[in-house]
């Protein structure tokens, strides 16, 4: 397999960061040389465990996802009946919980859990980044930070889905869609926390903001809170759930949020650059990939021999 300039650069930086010796480097390069150029052939022929093969998310990230998942749904199912309290459909929701006053208490209590989860996430990001910088393993391409490459990947992926390109682009640990979704969720959470806190602590916000705008600010927050909530619900139902439950290759459910692992097939298809790093970091993965490709007659030994001669 001939690597693109991007994949070569990822491979070189990964070899350097992991202080790989010459013998191991040759083994990795030989393995890559022997792979078929068509990436589709690789990911369609590797065996994957539905629960995932390659480690992707730490226990902290999984816990934060679980906290967000539970608090988000609870907040939506208590918040909407509070906002539309006199609508016919909202009355049974409020009555089940003991009346709108009880719904409000539940909503605010769960909101505290959601804010704590956000703070836990920020702490994980800061601590993880500092520890990677200190150990010399930090690589911005491996983070959720949007880069120019994401715009190119988006264009190339559209071309692939339009049938104008044979393969999907070589994407990194987080692809353009995940980055967009992550920042949309971060923006939405910030809007919800600021607007929600303005209902709970109006005096505090009035003391911070200039008197001339504090009344308009409250009005703006009253409008933003329910509308952002509805937007977030729609995004989660029609975008996130589609991507993790219904999309081809993920149906009926992607297990990563529970096991923290991604399937080999998915990693090669959508996160090929990260898979290159996996080949450098995980000797066992190299062995498994080579065995799988050889058993299917897709490993080209002569590519290595040609290189050697």
């Amino acid at each position: 397999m001939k690597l693109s300039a991007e994949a070569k650069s990822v491979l070189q930086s990964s070899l350097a960061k992991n202080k790989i010796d010459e013998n191991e480097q040759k083994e990795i390069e030989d393995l890559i040389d022997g792979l078929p150029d068509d990436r589709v052939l690789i990911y369609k022929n590797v065996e994957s465990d539905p629960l995932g093969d390659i480690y992707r998310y730490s226990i902290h990230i999984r816990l934060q996802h679980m906290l967000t998942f539970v608090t988000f749904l609870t907040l939506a199912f208590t918040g909407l009946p509070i906002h539309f309290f006199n609508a016919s459909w909202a009355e049974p929701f409020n009555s089940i919980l003991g009346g709108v006053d009880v719904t409000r208490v539940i909503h605010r209590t769960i909101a505290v859990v959601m804010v704590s989860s956000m703070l836990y996430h920020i702490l994980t990001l800061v601590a993880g980044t500092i520890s990677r910088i200190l150990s010399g393993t930090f690589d911005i391409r491996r983070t959720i930070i949007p880069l120019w490459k994401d715009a190119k990947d988006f264009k190339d992926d559209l071309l692939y889905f339009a049938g104008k390109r044979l393969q999907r682009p070589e994407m990194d640990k987080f692809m353009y869609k995940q980055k967009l979704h992550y920042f949309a969720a971060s923006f939405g959470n910030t809007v919800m926390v600021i607007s929600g806190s303005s209902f709970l602590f109006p005096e505090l916000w009035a003391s911070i903001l200039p008197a001339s705008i504090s009344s308009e600010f409250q009005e703006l927050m009253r409008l933003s809170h329910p509308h952002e909530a509805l937007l977030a619900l729609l995004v989660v139902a029609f975008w996130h759930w589609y991507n993790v439950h219904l999309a081809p290759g993920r149906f009926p459910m992607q297990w990563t949020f529970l096991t923290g692992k991604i399937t080999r097939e998915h990693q090669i298809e959508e996160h090929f650059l990260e898979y290159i790093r996996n080949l450098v970091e995980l000797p066992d993965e190299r062995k498994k990939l080579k065995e799988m490709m050889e058993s299917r007659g897709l490993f080209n030994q002569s590519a290595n021999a040609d290189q050697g001669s």
Partner: protein
Amino acid sequence: MIKPMTFWQKVIAYSSLAFVLICTVLGILAIWVMLSE
């Protein structure tokens, strides 16, 4: 090629799928009622 799931793995995966589909249907109904009132 993803290996087939075991019985209990299927139970978890399909229940989770059913849960999100029910939530989606409830959400659509809620929005429809909201807009029509």
